[in-house]
């Protein structure tokens, strides 16, 4: 016999999450009820549900920080903003997916629920400081993505990418979990907040457990966010998976993994003397390896895969700058860069998805030739995204890189800032290569490519507006980020 009183729960904190999950269930039911219709209804349901979730999140932004579910769900400015970014990402991916899926001949209705649940997992990772929830978020995100990566069932490379993603993802989760188990041993709880107490009051043995646990957790999260030396799966999986899935994978999964890295660093801040030097090396390697190998690639999706590794390195620099000097550097840079990364990457993949035609898809650089004539608007927006990825003003990519650069200098991470600058210059080569293939190079044989649908054009338009808008309305945005 024990006394039990129903817990007081702040439902508003998890309302967006419930909205997204229920939308997924409803979308699945629509598919079950009407299997012989086009996916229009499912898309409508999904977009409405995402809009509701977005509204709830905007409402949450103005509410005070709080924890509920015994510290498992957290509402703070950073987490809510990232969740909003994820919801927008999911919506933009849904917008351009249908046309692509039809051209690929794989318009399974299950795509949309799985994408929504994947978003839900990513949102969980952003809104918790509890290691159990972090693990569940990682798994909900990844398991849906494993299925989505292998969605093109008759295409060997899609299945191969699903298999690689699945095996390495499961391997990485095992490392993450083993790390969590050692942290649990040292602290006796699954809360990241209790680590500093365990570090100061625990003896040498619990400090050793914490260091070991931190190392293993970072191995797991490095796999998920694509830090060198755990990046090898990224280009393979990006290349093989259907392009719209790659778009979501490159953005949603990276945003969530970066959020998780941020939270874990926050928990282990007391040990920052140990990990900042190591993670600085990881950042240097991630930036350089990503950019250097991208120079050798001929496949657009692989180039963007390596570029996403390099961008993960840039963001890691911003995170390290914050934890090196928490008073001077806030989370704004990380959020701003993630926002700009999300818009330009999602937009690029949306345009690249146009190469699919009648069940076939070529993703080599030469397949982009002539895009300028077939889909002028999409090609023009691809140029904008490439300019932003390079970091040419007045795009948000430039502002983001500039912010990271100045943050790194302010925090005293001058070597990292130098490596970042050099890498930005290296990266010009392959981004210009993509732009060149799209606009300048003549097509050898009259190529076929899918017609840009209304959804794809609107994704491109929204991303382009976002890329410019985030740069032009920089100071209002920053005020908004700081909650003013």
């Amino acid at each position: 016999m024990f006394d039990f009183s129903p817990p007081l729960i702040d439902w508003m904190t998890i309302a967006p999450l419930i909205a997204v999950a229920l939308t997924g269930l409803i979308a699945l039911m629509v598919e079950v009820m009407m299997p012989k219709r086009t996916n229009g209804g499912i898309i409508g349901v999904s977009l409405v549900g995402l809009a509701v979730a977005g509204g709830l999140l905007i409402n949450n932004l103005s509410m005070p920080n709080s924890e509920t579910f015994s510290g498992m769900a957290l509402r703070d400015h950073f987490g809510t903003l990232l969740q909003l970014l994820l919801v927008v990402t999911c919506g933009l991916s849904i917008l351009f997916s249908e046309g692509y899926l039809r051209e690929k001949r794989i318009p399974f209705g299950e795509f949309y629920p799985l994408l929504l649940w994947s978003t839900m997992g990513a949102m969980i990772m952003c809104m918790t400081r509890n290691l159990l929830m972090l693990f569940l978020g990682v798994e909900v995100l990844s398991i849906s993505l494993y299925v989505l990566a292998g969605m093109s069932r008759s295409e060997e490379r899609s299945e191969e990418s699903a298999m690689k993603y699945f095996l390495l993802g499961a391997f990485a989760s095992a490392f993450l979990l083993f790390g969590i188990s050692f942290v649990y041993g040292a602290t006796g709880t699954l809360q990241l907040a209790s680590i500093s107490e365990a570090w100061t009051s625990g003896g040498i043995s619990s400090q050793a457990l914490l260091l070991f646990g931190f190392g293993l957790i970072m191995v797991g999260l490095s796999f998920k966010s694509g830090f060198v030396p755990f990046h090898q799966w990224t280009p393979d999986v990006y290349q093989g998976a259907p392009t719209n899935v790659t778009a979501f994978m490159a953005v949603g999964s990276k945003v969530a993994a970066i959020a998780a890295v941020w939270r874990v660093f926050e928990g282990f801040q007391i040990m920052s003397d140990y990990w900042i030097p190591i993670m600085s090396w990881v950042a240097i390697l991630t930036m350089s390896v990503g950019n250097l190998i991208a120079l050798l690639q001929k496949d657009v999706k692989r180039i963007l895969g390596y570029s996403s590794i390099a961008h993960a390195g840039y963001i890691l620099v911003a995170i390290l700058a914050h934890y090196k000097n928490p008073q001077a550097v806030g989370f704004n840079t990380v959020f701003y860069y993630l926002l700009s990364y999300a818009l330009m990457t999602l937009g690029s993949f949306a345009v690249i998805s146009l190469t699919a035609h009648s069940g076939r898809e070529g993703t080599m650089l030469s397949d982009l030739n002539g895009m300028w004539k077939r889909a002028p608007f999409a090609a023009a927006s691809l140029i904008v995204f490439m300019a932003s990825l390079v970091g040419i003003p007045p795009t948000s990519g430039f502002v983001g890189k500039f912010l990271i650069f100045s943050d790194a200098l302010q925090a005293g991470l001058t070597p990292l800032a130098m490596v970042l600058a050099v890498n930005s210059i290296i990266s010009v080569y392959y981004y210009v290569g993509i732009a060149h293939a799209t606009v300048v190079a003549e097509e050898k044989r009259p190529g076929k490519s899918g017609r840009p649908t209304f959804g794809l054009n609107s994704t491109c338009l929204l991303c382009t507006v976002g890329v410019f808008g985030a740069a032009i309305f920089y100071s209002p945005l920053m005020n908004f980020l700081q909650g003013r």
Partner: protein
Amino acid sequence: MQGTYLGLLFLIVIAAIVCGAMVTLSWLLGPKKKTPYKEAPYECGVTPVGDARERFPIKFYLVAILFILFDIEVVFLWSWMTAFKKADTNFMVFSFFELLGYMATWVVGYVYALHVGAIDWDETTSLAPEKLGKKHNADEQKENVA
């Protein structure tokens, strides 16, 4: 106390020695006469039939996958039930409704699995052509003609 487990350790060591000795000695000392009958794999005393690498219908895997999923749901029910037996009314009422929510998601999953024919032995599901939309179907026909 280490002493408690000493007996177990001895048992393991003795078992290993006895088994090892029986296998090794019979292999060393025994006569070796090879006949085709002796070389054949042992299948419970029955003469082996067919190739050992016979393929299973892939449907077995599908059923196994569904079994794993619906099997693991009990893990949560079991721990809930253990607490439920000795709990007060408040907990019973509260957790009952929580459990309804939990089971509802399983039911949705089950309905979906039934719907796509995952447990129909003969049926294979494929994409309904209507999914591609009217315009695209027309396109395809034009291409096929040309």
